[in-house]
Structure formats: C-alpha cells, structure tokens
C-alpha cells in the first residue's frame, strides 16, 4: 500500500486525494438523501428537532461540496488560478466586513485603495513569490499609508474608530486569507508539486476542529463568554483541538512533517482558528448581528461567507509562519 502510494507521481497523489474526498462527500450526500426520504415517509412534524438537525447537516454538506470543488478547480487549473480564487474570496469577505462597519464619506478614497490597490497587490506579491515583502506589505506599508489618505479627506469625526475598523478588515480578510495560497510558495526541498497537500492539511484540520467544537458544544451549558458566544466552552474547545490535532497527526503522511510535528502544527492552526472565530463573533455582536449572512438580522443581504472562512483567516498566517520558522532553514 505504502510503496504503491510512493510510486505515484505528486500529481497522481493529489488526484487520489481529491478522488477520496469526493467519494466521501458522495457517500455522505447519498446517506443524507436517504435519511430525508425516510423523514418524509415518517411524516412531517413528527420530530422537529431531528429535521432541523438534518437541515443543519445538509447545509454543512453543501458548503463542504462547494469548498472541495473550489479547491479542486484551484488545483487542477494551477497555482495562478488558485491565487485568483482566493483573491476573489478575499474581496467578497472584505465587502461583507465593510458593509457592517459604518464608514463616512471621508473614508471613500481609503476604501477604494483597500479594495482595488491593497488587495490586488497583496495577491500579486503571492503570485510573484515575493515572500518577504508579502508578509510585511500590509502590516508595515499599508498600515501607515491608509490613514494618510483618510486624513487628507478632512474629517476628524471618529477617525480612530473608523480607521481601526478598516485596518482590521484588511488584516483579517486580505492579509490573513492570502496566507492560504501563500502556502504553495513555501520552499520545501523534495516536496515540490505537492504543496497543495499543505493547503488541504490546513483546511481539513481547521474545519474538523470547528465542526467537532460545534457538535460537542451542543451538549454543554454555561459558556465561557455568554455575551459573545453561546457555543464556546473550554471543554468543547479542547475536544475540537484534540480532534484537529489527531487528524493532523494521521495526515502526516501527506505533509513534509513527521507525525509528532504534524500534530503540533495542527494544534497551532486549530487554536488560532477557533480563537479567531471567537474574536470575529465578538465583532459581530458589537455590530448587533449574530451572523454575517442573511440568517441573522442582516440589513445588507450578505451571503455569510465570512462566517465560513474566519477561522481560516486567523489560522493561516499563524500556520504559515510556524511552518516557516520551524522547517525552513
């Protein structure tokens, strides 16, 4: 088995991974359809809790399909397309974030700069493999340049508050998310062509952690910070980390790491992702909504994409740099 896998070319290995992923998704979808058929024969309204739970699972499944498809397209079409795809997600997510942060007329030029200059430049830096510049472009240059543009607009009212929001949005939605495709740039000797595995590793581990955390939290009461999140408990958090870490250890074979370092890397990514999700929840509560999307009291008609990727936005930079410091000499 192992020698068979070793014998495959990197492309064949990644292809196999996608075949397995889509196979698993297909099985889960078929199971979901069968379950919903049985639900229908049982009669509607017999068990409301179960049917809402089934609906929950089905939306989750749909999202997973979508993400898997996006990743597959990204991988099949090459690094360039993957970077453009992530750039587009960044754009949509930043759009959601800005929609819910009140800005004033004076911010217009800085917003234009953020969307049409900062975002494309950041992804162009990833594309052209300027690893060092790409890690400092936003925190150093943009951080200092944007307020200048806003100051020139001559509007002092709530200046710091408005700017803090814009900077935050750029950090999370552009800087954070751009670290996912940047994983494709890490120079690992003897691992060329298979860096897509690293992206898969990060996403799989973080999503598993979030899912397990969500499922465990349902059975618990007395959350740690009830005013911010009704679903955050130290125990469910620990369970999520454990699940993510274990999965990371199991997936060590597809990464350049040994099992124990893989587990450690997965733990780091999961901790950053799940805590980041909590932070984004706090921001949402501050804005008076529970979801970025239309499920909550949303006036904007957002699609709620940010809800799905916020953990990734926080996990990616931490993961990227941990991998870089530890393994890249």
């Amino acid at each position, binding site marked *: 088995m192992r020698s068979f896998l070793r014998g495959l070319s990197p492309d064949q290995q990644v292809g196999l991974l996608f075949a397995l992923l889509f196979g698993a998704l297909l099985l889960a979808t078929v199971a979901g359809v069968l379950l919903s058929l049985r639900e229908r024969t049982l009669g509607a309204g017999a068990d409301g809790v179960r049917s809402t739970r089934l609906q929950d699972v089905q939306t989750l499944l749909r999202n997973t399909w979508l993400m898997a498809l996006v990743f597959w397209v990204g991988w099949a079409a090459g690094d360039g397309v993957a970077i453009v795809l992530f750039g587009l997600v960044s754009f949509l997510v930043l759009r*959601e974030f800005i929609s819910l942060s009140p800005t004033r007329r004076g911010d217009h030029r800085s*917003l*234009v700069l953020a*969307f049409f200059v900062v975002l494309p430049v950041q992804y162009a830096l990833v594309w052209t493999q300027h690893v060092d510049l790409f890690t400092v472009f936003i925190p150093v240059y943009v951080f200092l340049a944007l307020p200048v543009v806003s100051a020139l607009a001559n509007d002092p009212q709530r200046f710091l508050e408005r700017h803090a929001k814009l900077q935050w949005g750029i950090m999370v939605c552009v800087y954070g998310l751009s670290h996912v495709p940047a994983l494709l740039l890490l120079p690992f000797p003897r691992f060329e062509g298979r860096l897509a595995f690293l992206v898969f590793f990060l996403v799989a581990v973080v999503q598993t952690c979030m899912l397990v955390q969500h499922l465990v939290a349902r059975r618990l009461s007395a959350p740690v910070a009830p005013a911010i999140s009704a679903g955050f408990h130290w125990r469910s958090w620990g369970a999520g980390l454990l699940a993510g870490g274990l999965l990371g250890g199991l997936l060590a074979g597809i990464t350049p790491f040994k099992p124990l370092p893989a587990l450690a890397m997965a733990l780091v990514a999961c901790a950053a992702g799940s805590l980041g999700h909590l932070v984004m929840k706090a921001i949402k509560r501050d804005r008076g909504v529970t979801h970025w999307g239309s499920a909550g009291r949303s006036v*904007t*008609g957002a699609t709620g994409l940010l809800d799905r990727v916020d953990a990734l936005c926080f996990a990616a930079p931490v993961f990227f740099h941990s991998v870089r410091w530890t393994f890249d000499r």
Partner: protein
Amino acid sequence: MDWRAKAMSLLLLGFVRLLTGAQARWHGCPPKAEQRIYFANHQSHADLVLIWAALPTELRSITRPIAARDYWTTSRFKRWITGAVFNAVYVERERKGDEDPLAPLMAALESGDSLILFPEGTRGHAEDPQPFKSGLYNLARQFPEVMLVPAWIHNVQRVMPKGEVVPVPVLCSVTFGEPIRLGPDEPRADFLQRARAAVMALRDL
C-alpha cells in the same frame, strides 16, 4: 432587445452584483408580473441601476425607469443605454408650454408597463427622504388598479458618494414592502405623507 444591448445589460448586472450584491428582499408582496409602480428613496445615481438589478429577470423586462430627456438624450451612447438597455421613459424636467410632464409616464402605464419612480424628485443627502412630489399622487389617481409598491434602498450612498468616480464595494439591498392604495377622496398631502412613511418603515426591517 438586440444582442449588444443584451450583452451590455449582462455586463452591467455582473458588475453591480459584484460590487453590491444587489439583493432584493420581498416583504409584504411577492415578485409578481402585475402592473406596478415601485417608488423608493433616492440618494445616489446608482439607485436606479440597483433596483433594476435587484428585480428578477422577468420583471426587469416589463419595468421601466424614468430618465430626464435633456440629460440622457444628448449623446448617442446615453440615448442607447437608456433606450435600448434600460428601456427608460423620457420625461421633461422643465415644463414646456402647457404639456403635462406626466404624459409620457401615463402613456407607459396605459400600454401595461410597470414604472420605477423616485418621488423625492432629486437626490437627498439627509438620513430621511425629502417630502414627496405630487407625481405619485396624480398617477395613483389616474390608474387606481396599478399596485403602488414602496421600496427602501439600503447602503447605496456608501457605494459612490457625490463627487467620487470610483465605486466602493459595499453590500446593498432593496427591500420591497406591502403595496399601498390611494383611499377614496384621500387628500393629496395625506397620501404623499403616507407613501413616504411606507418607504421609511422599510428602513428598519
């Protein structure tokens, strides 16, 4: 619609959706192909494009916006985009002689089209919409069978404030509310007041 107008409208739709999402939220009435006058708050040039983009395709083809003749027919491109793409009804801004400025709108309603109307007349910059002009009342009196659907456009003023040329991506939505009717011998001022309140009530939904 020829292929160029079709291509242009698809391009515009894609652009508006990418920038704003152009989400329609139907509260109080379903999107239905009946004769209607949509009336909304007016804060930006983009308002019209946003309502146009938020309507479903079937309704978009029978719903006509209103364009000022003196501005939108001065060049071939402007005439083409308002005429072929938006299928707009042209109105005179300045009253010429004793011609009724509402006559083109009435002609459009008589032929069965729906209209998009901004009863404030001009773009407002305050939080609340300005008092409504009486055009809506006159049309409602002449065409009592046409549904009057209020709409509130969220966020558009953030996309492109006055004097800026580059739009910023911000999610916008159009909320359509419950249709109102002109009561029997309801005075004009009362009706316009009520219509404005109906539009403003959609703001906090």
